[in-house]
């Protein structure tokens, strides 16, 4: 599709020489001067456009050429209008050039000229005058033969609204409100003037007005809407389409929303229905079949609104229009394109009803019948079942519908505060919500980065942590679920998909069902995680699973950063245990395990810094972890940090429960490991421990010894032995000479430090006030003060 030819075209356009360009300009001027415009003119203009748009550096056309191109905007040939507009949009306007040529002849402001004006409008004043001209054009309503003379007016106005709503004055708004009412509610209900010329017998008699039809073929019984069809359409029917297309935006811009809690509820409720109607699979099955002969009751039941001011009248008519659309959406359209349009209209109608109800709460009562018809009685009255749909059914059944996921997550973000306050299901449903992320991490990562903090509560934190750690497994499970539905049973074993077999086997059902659960609260995790990981081993290189695993570390960071603000010591302790336990219980995706360990280490440190007594509290588990030599090789990062926190915080100054016995048993455990890793080569398959592990162990031992002085001789002995052994040259447990030197140097430092126990104690176990310097707070030594003084001194010269 994209060829080498295209690439070289772009290159040529970018690298065109100035002289060649000038020649091209002059040739083009000559072509444009001719009376007739040929294919060559069109081609040359197209090339000019390519040259101008190929680079981001703007060019100015020579004035003569610029003028000629400008005049193309009022050419009778649309192709030339299009090209003129396109070329001028890519170039800078001539200085002082005012695009006011069209003030003389408003009806000549075609769509392409308007596009140019819009893109080059610099100030609100420019846009205001454009709007004024367009509205004047609407008022005079000249039809001069072209098919839809004024249909681009509304889109242009809508664009202006988006960027500068203040461009329309109060009068303009009133005028347009009236016009919109006319087009929306009072467009012709007969088909447009028949384009097909009759035969020999065409005469006034045979040209009877034919009414428009509904999408299922029946004759329309009520006012015209976008869901009505005909052979051809009248001008005001076209305007009906354009008006409805911009209606919601208009209402949002000019009808201010009043603040009030009562209306907020309704707004939320109705916004939900957006997600309901969005779901493709729910739309047709759940709705009742409507007989084609149902007469629309909308206009029959509405009250007269002639006495309302324009804005309110528009609101009322918008309301009626939407009610009619909702009725019309129930009809069985003959064409698929129309069926799709019905869904889109349904969504739009409900959103507009939302807008108008927020503005005028008395309309809520009148929406009741529609909402009841669409979603059933319960939904209209009570939020519960709607929330159940949103949090339970959608994510679990439609996790792979990316548009639904996108809208649902945006809805959650917009209403986060209300959800947290008033909808308990929200937080409990995180297993379901995370399914969306597990399926499509790259697309939804940003959304979850925003939402995750709101899902972290003290009650669910542990389960949430387990769930996050098992996201890759969830991802694999969803893939299996998806495949299971499409592959016949016999085929899978032939292709050797062990995981698929496991997924379908009853003995492992429980494992997968736990992952696929919809609500939190039934248990933090399962016992047989190991088994699950083995079953899913082959999923470790499935792209979806790998993408998911890349998103987990970031989420973990967010989780821990949030939990640290709400946890109490008990929760911290529990989380540390989870970290230690899960460090060996992760799906075996190489980078995933390393990254997760890194996150754990970082936050273990933070927790312990915040609550040093945690170390004494959890000393048993931490010691068990630190005493297992295998951990040095398989979980180096975490191991290092565990040893560090033990060395740092296992002291009486951190927690008075710290006994000499505890210090000694910790010492002995670490000593044993240190002996082991420095006396032999690493086990087969493992690499040499990083120097950091060894030095951390040594430092930890030294710190512990400084608190219980009878341990000092043992450390010193070890350190001197170490020095002796390493003098002999290389060792089996350290491959790099520089590393060895660093280790030995640290050993010597510690050894000399420990020669004076008192000094060792104050260095290795410093009292609190040394650890929390107040340099920036103490005005006498504050760095900013010093810097200011220095600056003043140097600048005064």
């Amino acid at each position, binding site marked *: *599709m*994209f*060829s080498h030819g295209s690439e070289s075209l772009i290159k040529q356009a970018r690298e065109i020489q100035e002289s060649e360009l000038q020649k091209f300009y002059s040739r083009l001027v000559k072509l444009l001067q001719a009376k007739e415009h040929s294919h060559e003119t069109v081609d040359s203009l197209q090339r000019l456009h390519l040259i101008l748009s190929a680079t981001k550096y703007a060019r100015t056309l020579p004035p003569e050429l610029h003028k000629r191109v400008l005049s193309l905007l009022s050419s009778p040939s649309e192709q030339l209008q299009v*090209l003129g507009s396109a070329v001028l949009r890519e170039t800078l306007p001539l200085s002082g050039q005012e695009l006011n040529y069209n003030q003389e002849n408003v009806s000549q402001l075609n*769509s392409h000229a308007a*596009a140019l004006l819009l893109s080059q409008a610099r100030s609100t004043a420019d846009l205001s005058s454009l709007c004024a001209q367009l509205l004047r054009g609407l008022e005079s309503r000249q039809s001069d033969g072209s098919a839809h003379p004024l249909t681009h007016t509304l*889109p242009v106005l809508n664009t202006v609204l988006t960027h500068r709503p203040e461009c329309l004055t109060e009068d303009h708004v009133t005028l347009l409100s009236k016009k919109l009412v006319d087009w929306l509610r009072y467009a012709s209900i007969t088909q447009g003037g028949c384009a097909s010329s009759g035969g020999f017998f065409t005469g006034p008699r045979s040209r009877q007005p034919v009414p428009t039809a509904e999408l299922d073929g029946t004759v329309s019984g009520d006012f015209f809407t976008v869901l009505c069809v005909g052979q051809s359409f009248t001008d005001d029917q076209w305007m009906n389409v354009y008006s409805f297309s911009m209606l919601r935006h208009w209402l949002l811009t000019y009808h201010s929303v009043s603040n009030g809690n009562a209306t907020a509820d309704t707004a939320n409720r109705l916004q939900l229905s957006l997600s309901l109607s969005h779901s493709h699979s729910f739309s047709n099955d759940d709705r009742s079949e409507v007989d084609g002969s149902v007469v629309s009751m909308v206009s029959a039941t509405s009250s007269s609104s002639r006495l309302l001011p324009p804005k309110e009248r528009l609101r009322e008519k918008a309301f009626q229009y939407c009610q009619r659309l909702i009725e019309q959406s129930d009809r069985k359209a003959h064409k698929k*394109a129309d069926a799709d349009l019905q869904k889109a209209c349904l969504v739009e109608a409900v959103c507009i009803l939302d807008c108008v109800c927020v503005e005028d709460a008395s309309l809520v009562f009148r929406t009741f019948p529609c909402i009841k018809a669409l979603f059933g009685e319960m939904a209209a009255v009570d939020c519960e079942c709607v929330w159940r749909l949103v949090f339970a059914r959608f994510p679990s059944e439609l996790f792979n519908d990316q548009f639904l996921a996108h809208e649902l997550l945006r809805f959650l973000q917009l209403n986060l505060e209300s959800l947290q306050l008033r909808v308990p299901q929200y937080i409990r449903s995180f297993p379901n919500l995370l399914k969306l992320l597990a399926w499509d991490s790259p697309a939804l990562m940003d959304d979850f980065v925003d939402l995750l903090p709101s899902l972290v509560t003290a009650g669910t934190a542990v389960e949430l942590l387990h769930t996050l750690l098992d996201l890759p497994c969830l991802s694999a499970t969803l893939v299996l679920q998806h495949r299971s539905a499409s592959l016949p049973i016999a085929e899978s074993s032939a292709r050797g998909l062990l995981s698929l077999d496991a997924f379908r086997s009853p003995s492992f059902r429980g494992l997968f069902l736990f992952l696929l659960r919809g609500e939190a609260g039934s248990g933090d995790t399962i016992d047989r995680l190991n088994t699950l990981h083995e079953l899913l081993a082959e999923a470790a290189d499935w*792209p979806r699973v790998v993408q998911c695993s890349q998103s987990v570390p970031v989420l973990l960071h967010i989780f821990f950063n949030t939990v640290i603000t709400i946890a109490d010591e008990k929760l911290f302790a529990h989380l540390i245990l989870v970290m230690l336990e899960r460090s060996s219980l992760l799906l075996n995706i190489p980078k995933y395990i390393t990254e997760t360990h890194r996150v754990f280490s970082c936050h273990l440190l933070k927790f312990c810094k915040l609550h040093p007594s945690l170390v004494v509290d959890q000393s048993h588990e931490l010691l068990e972890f630190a005493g297992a030599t295998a951990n040095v090789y398989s979980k180096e990062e975490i191991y290092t940090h565990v040893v560090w926190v033990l060395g740092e915080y296992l002291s009486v100054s951190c927690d008075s429960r710290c006994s000499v016995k505890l210090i000694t048993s910790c010492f002995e455990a670490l000593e044993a490991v240190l002996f082991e890793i420095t006396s032999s080569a690493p086990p087969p398959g493992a690499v040499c421990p990083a120097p950091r592990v060894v030095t951390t162990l040594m430092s930890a031992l030294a710190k512990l010894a400084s608190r219980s002085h009878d341990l000092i001789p043992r450390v010193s002995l070890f350190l001197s032995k170490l020095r002796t052994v390493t003098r002999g040259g290389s060792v089996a447990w350290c491959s790099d000479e520089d590393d060895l030197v660093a280790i030995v140097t640290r050993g010597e430092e510690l050894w000399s430090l420990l020669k004076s126990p008192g000094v060792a104690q104050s260095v290795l176990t410093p009292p609190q006030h040394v650890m929390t310097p107040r340099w920036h707070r103490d005005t006498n030594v504050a760095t900013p003060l010093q810097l200011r003084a220095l600056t003043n001194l140097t600048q005064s010269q």
Partner: protein
Amino acid sequence: MVRCFLIHTVCPLAALGPGDSRILYCRVFGPDEAERHRQLSPEEARALQKEKTAVVARQVRCSVSLSREASGRLLVEAVPGEEALALQEADSGVVRLRAGDPFTEETSALWLGVQSLGFTLVCEPHENLLLAEGTLRNLTRHCLEHLHMLGQGSEVLLRSNRIDALLSRLLPHGQLLFLNHRFAQSLEKEVAAYMAK
């Protein structure tokens, strides 16, 4: 309101870096919002706009390749004449573009990946995504057919006025339209008449 419509590459290109995308067609609707907040000269404003659309193209390119990787589907080359098939096989998705990255407000970029090209519609957050998706598919279908995009040609670059004309009917000034099949047919007839010139 649609902010812009882009046609850009979503396949690796020798001339560009790995994540980069070449924009073949770009149409931005409406006045430039950047100007409101800063006093930029027209040249700077234009350069900024080009850079913003380049950012969008890159983000979509990234999403397309990740999505294709995850779904594991093989790309089948369709030949001219198989436009409907190519469209049916196309990947689709939506990317959330955060406020400031690159547009001042948050936007959503809907995309359709047809083999080596991506068709992207950047919409405002409150836009009707169902309608936008339908419009995007329709636009893509017309582009594929009228510009013979399944072949080797470079018509996108040399016939961009056709896309402009198409947009002026189906997406006038960025306005999404609720068109039933009869309205659509009427507009498509006009488009076809234009293309025939």
